[in-house]
């Protein structure tokens, strides 16, 4: 079986997986309606208003959210059909709360989340791989044991707590101790007090960018540290494994110096599985980081999922679920393809 056939098969499989996720979402977010008979419209309008509305007006209201009042089995089938059509035509509906299209709400927050998750992942990956390689050259050394212990410690750390600690130290105690010389913002993504400064200044864009980076620093460090442990351990273990392979022995026998063996022969092979991990990381990147975003009140998707869930704003949550699942599936696919391209030993089939 060649590459083409493999790709076609994978694409069909991906499509089925997306369909499965879409169906799963439909039932997941209608569980309260199915089990308890509560519809989100009930939360919007009072009992009194409901009695005063005509049947027609009520149906129109429900229809706006793709719902039917007091649904029977046929209504469910109809709702399911409408939902499927909407999802595959990219119509995610409107938010129950803000009455704005869900896609607009998501796009508003997406850049913030991409910025936060992107920078922190890149930092974690680069430092993780770098230290992993450094340590794998001499497994069992004091340096190695120390680094592994540190990575295990990070693995056990509740990341949101790390965020709280950093926030407390760098945004509360340090500014007080240094008289505001070193100071980081306590909350938010951008400082709205600077609005006039930013709009009335020719360099306003730069000021805004600097302000966002200032706000970005602490959550980025938090997530970077949180991700670092995993990349480090994975890289180290891979490389130590690779270094026991026969071709490394051959390379050494050829008389190559240890650095060349490590970086040219070892690292290249050990990086292959890392590609999958990195691709998967970027697949889940729009997932955001609910806990860290909550700690730093970062205006991103992770916090948006949670806030919408708490006020039962289902269209938002189901749309984000759908988007995350599709990105994850795509990332998985790309990772597999990349793996094949990078490693000629892989045969498709």
């Amino acid at each position, binding site marked *: 079986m060649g590459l083409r056939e493999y790709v076609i098969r994978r694409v069909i499989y991906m499509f089925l997986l997306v369909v499965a996720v879409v169906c799963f979402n439909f039932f997941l977010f209608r569980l309260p309606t199915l089990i308890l008979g509560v519809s989100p419209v009930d939360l919007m309008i009072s009992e009194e208003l409901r009695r005063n509305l005509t049947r027609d007006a009520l149906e129109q209201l429900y229809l706006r959210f793709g719902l039917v009042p007091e649904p029977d089995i046929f209504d469910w089938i109809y709702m399911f059909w409408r939902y499927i059509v909407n999802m595959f035509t990219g119509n995610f509906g409107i938010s129950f709360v803000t009455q704005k299209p869900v896609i607009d709400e998501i796009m508003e927050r997406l850049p913030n989340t991409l910025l936060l998750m992107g920078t922190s992942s890149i930092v974690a990956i680069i430092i993780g791989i770098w230290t992993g390689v450094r340590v794998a050259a001499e*497994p069992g050394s004091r340096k190695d044991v120390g680094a592994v212990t540190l990575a295990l410690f990070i693995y056990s750390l509740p990341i949101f707590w790390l965020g709280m600690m950093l926030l407390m130290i760098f945004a509360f105690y340090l500014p007080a101790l240094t008289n505001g010389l070193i100071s980081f913002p306590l909350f938010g993504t951008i400082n709205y007090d600077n609005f006039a400064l930013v709009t009335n200044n020719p360099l306003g864009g730069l000021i805004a960018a600097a302000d966002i980076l200032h706000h970005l620093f602490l959550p980025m460090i938090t997530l970077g540290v949180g991700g670092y442990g995993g990349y480090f351990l994975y890289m180290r273990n891979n490389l130590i*494994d690779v270094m026991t392979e026969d071709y490394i022995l051959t390379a050494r026998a050829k008389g190559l110096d240890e650095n060349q063996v490590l970086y040219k022969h070892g690292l290249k092979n050990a990086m292959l599985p890392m590609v999958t991990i990195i691709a998967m990381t970027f697949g889940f990147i729009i997932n955001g980081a609910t806990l860290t975003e909550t*700690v730093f009140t970062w205006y991103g998707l992770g916090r948006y999922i949670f806030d919408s869930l708490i006020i039962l704003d289902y269209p938002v949550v189901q749309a984000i679920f759908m988007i995350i699942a599709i990105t994850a599936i795509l990332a998985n696919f790309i990772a597999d393809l990349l793996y094949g391209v990078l490693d000629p030993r892989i045969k498709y089939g």
Partner: protein
Amino acid sequence: MSQYESDKKTGGWKDSNLYVSLSGFWHEYRKHKIGILGLAILGLYIGMAIGAPFLATHDPSPTAKVAPHFLAPQWMAFFDPQGVITNEYYPDPFLYEEPNFVTQGPNKDEFSYSHFVAEEAGERNYVNLTWTHNAEPMYWRTPYDIEGNLPDSLDFVYFTRNFTWPFNNIPSDVNMTLEYGVTLTGDFATQEAGGIMFRVYMWLIDSSGNWRRVYQSSAPYTPTLQDRRIDLNYFDVNEAFGGMVQDENGVQEDPDDTLTVAVGLAPTRYFRNYLNTHPEDFYTGSVTVQVTEVSLIAYGEYFGILGTTDKGADAWSQLVYGSRISLYIGILATALSTIVGVIVGLVAGYFGGRTDEILMRLVDFLLVIPGLPLMMVLAAFLGPSVENIIVVIAILGWTGTSRIVRSQVMAEKNKAYVESARAIGASDTYIILRHVLPNVTPILFANITLGVVGAILSESGLAFLGLTDPSQPSWGRMLADAQGTGGFYNGAWWVVVFPGLMITLLSLAFTFVGHTLDQVLNPRLRER
């Protein structure tokens, strides 16, 4: 280097009998320092979870207010020796020891007292103050004490306990509790005005001998024991404690730092003249006051072992009880997900074909669903009970286990011993349980331990978002409370640091044990 070489030489003990393999395992395990450290920490936590009722000093409920909010831990008073520590200062609130009894006045024979110590469970210690009156005049204070600090009669009974006030400061607030019941007989019970002929008093007496009345009772009375909670006003606190504060010359008003609490029973002026009658001349009967609790709580900036939370609850007790929830959820959720993962992995790997295909597609499906968001959705829909949280965490936890088990089973099932077992007619169940499963278990141990870490962290995350039971003390919820109420904006760093430290240390212990198990049991993984 030695650590890695030793693993390779230890194939032998895995194949022998249980005792040999256990001691061989231990011999290998104890070489890893972090493994031992992990076990030690784990032991401490389990001890804490079991001993929680003994270790906790207060009600562990997050909403049980015991003091003002965000009080600092007691040991921080080390830097501030005069800072008042919030505590119970009455030496014996439940009256185990016999207090000092005093009867006074020319008619002191009318008064008696007794002290009773509980001997059986369900009984309570109490002090009885009794006044038995036979129609005859009492001796009255003339004129009456205008401020009302002293009773109207010179004849009365009281009991006292004293304590030393260790600080050179006035407490920010003082709450006192007096629990008592009153039994009346004779005219005191039958006459309409019987209830206003006497009063129960509580006084604070400083070492200069100034009496400050902080409580006086009023009718009606019942024999049932009832709590009287008394919040001392500013003047009471100042009067009673102010004399013990040194001025800048180191001189204080009162001779020493002793404060006396007195509880007494005395006739009122109505007993002398009530609507132009003289009850003292015709009343016959008795009044018995049964006191079961006297307490004095002084509030300051410091409280308990770890201070108080945003709701004024004791942080230490919550921290101690939090270990129960974390261990319980961590272990049970992992057990559940391991059972599911092992069954799915065994079935998929052993039978292969279509079964394998379907199960692995299910795993693929779960892997593309975002983890924490799904847990949030399920926790919000199912409700916050502990069982639901366990299920929610386990739903996503089994996929990794099932993949590991499946790949191991696929490697094992074509080996010769499985073939031969099948050849002599062993059933699938027998082969899975007797041959395949035992070969897969070592792989699982490390996986299980690391799974507990994930479950503990998930639980704390869900609790941090407020999706767990709000009445259960848990570390994640303590952090949520600290975050939601601006714990450190109020300078209360202890509500942020300690719960997080507890989570970190517990999961670190499991991580260390899991890492060590991985090194001891699965050297094959590294050799590949």
